[in-house]
């Protein structure tokens, strides 16, 4: 059987001036079992909700443990995750303000992919909210889900909530997609600030994308420089770059 190799680089950064412990974005990667391929997910906990970083972490960990392939699978998964979130949050010693905020629930955007072994590698993905999966080939963006343009990011994306009553938007907003990865292809999973930055760079000058992604494989400098220039919003960043070698 022909096999394929992936180079994976993950980035998790808090806002400038904040500690990594305050970061409300999360990521997870698993390639732990031979023949099962690779699973990866990023999630963005909404800053306006409580313990949203923990909710984002639960969503990414759950996705890479067992990929979610449909809206119904996602809905089946959520009660157990909410139970874990409740157990973490509603403890007897929780401060009153955190409790009040927690009563309003937590919200997060999620983007995840699973990539099978084999060449070409079949892959499938899921995204909701403003965390994106961008597929690049030959230095160009060939697809971006669920948002395809840098000016399409809003302040009010539909997110996954700990409160099932507030998840009606999943039915219309959840995106499921997939395809095949060729040698040299890249999948970028990124929360909103970096996804918007990358899409804007591609719209401005498509030739910049290759250099930008290689920079991401080398480290966080490109993120720090983008923030300094003001091209990249000062927001938490979770990103995973998967390159097929």
């Amino acid at each position, binding site marked *: 059987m022909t096999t394929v190799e992936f180079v994976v680089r993950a980035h998790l950064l808090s806002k400038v001036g904040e500690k990594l412990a305050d970061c409300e974005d999360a990521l997870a990667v698993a390639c732990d079992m031979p023949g099962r391929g690779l699973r990866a997910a990023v999630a963005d906990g909404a800053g306006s909700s409580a313990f949203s970083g923990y909710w984002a972490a639960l969503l990414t960990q759950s996705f890479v443990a067992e990929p979610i392939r449909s809206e119904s699978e996602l809905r089946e998964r959520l009660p157990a995750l*909410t*139970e874990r979130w409740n157990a973490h949050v509603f403890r007897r010693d929780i*401060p*009153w303000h955190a*409790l*009040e905020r927690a009563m309003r629930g937590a919200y997060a955007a999620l983007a995840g992919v699973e990539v099978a072994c084999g060449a070409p590698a079949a892959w499938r993905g899921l995204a909701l909210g403003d965390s994106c999966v961008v597929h690049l080939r030959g230095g160009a963006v060939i697809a971006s889900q669920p948002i395809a343009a840098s000016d399409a990011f809003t302040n009010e994306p539909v997110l996954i909530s*700990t409160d099932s009553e507030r998840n009606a938007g999943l039915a219309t907003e959840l995106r499921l997609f997939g395809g095949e990865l060729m040698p040299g292809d890249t999948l970028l999973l990124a929360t909103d600030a970096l996804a918007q930055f990358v899409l804007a760079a591609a719209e401005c000058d498509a030739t910049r994308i290759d250099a930008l992604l290689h920079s991401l494989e080398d480290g966080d400098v490109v993120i720090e420089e983008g923030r300094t220039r003001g091209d990249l919003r000062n927001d938490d960043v979770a990103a995973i770059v998967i390159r097929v070698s």
Partner: protein
Amino acid sequence: MPYRAEISRRNPGYFIFLIDRSASMNDPHGRKSEKSKAESVADAINRIIQNIVIQCSKNEGVYDYFSVSVIGYGSEVGSAFSGPLAGRPYASTSELEANPARLESRKQRVPDGAGGLVDVEVRFPIWFDAVAAGATPMKRALGSAYGLAYAWIQENPNAYPPIVMNLTDGESSDGDPAEAAKKLTSLQTSDGNVLLFNMHLSAEGGDAVLYPSSEAVLDDPFARQLYSITSVLPDAMLQQALAMELPVRQGSRGFVFNGDVVSAIQFLEIGTKPANMALR
């Protein structure tokens, strides 16, 4: 553009509440109310401070996005915090979180994730108690706010400017407050002048005047006096008022005359709008 500064721990915001504690605040707040004006204002202030602290809550800590002053004016003028913060001219949000006078308990229901509800005991913090005695030295209260805002601006020259919310049920007893108000609102940061909003509380009920943009709608000389010293609502607060379906338009001032309990809560929500915006 003024009133656009992003609020962060490096560039915090500042709310100053001026609360009339004169003897007439013992009267009921409207004909149907079982509570006095002093009690309903205390409830509203405690709730709004609670909301400010909750907005600053990050996991189990509280970030210092804001400072808060509560100045009472009645038989005396000064800090109106109860409990550990008594006498303090201002407190940061983390100090407020750590030092309520007391916590009152009650039960609330939250979703269990499977379509059901579970009971959770919540605690309601109290920082400010109802007091009603003496006259209405509004001029001195505005002077006190000037001193606080002046000192704060020296420390935070580029921050969102201080927002002063004055709740009263009567005319100033220590003279025309116009000069003191003008001096207060002449203070500025690089993001704009100090904002002064005024709320007059009704004892009798009757029609309230909400956020007028012209004094022509005001018959009462006292109402005109308060209107004249009130700031125009910045855009974000105007949008907040529109979202609450209040009758505002461009040029509306942060002024309510003859308002009831509901309009007092709305008034405080609009004035503290920066606490509900994205905090960095």
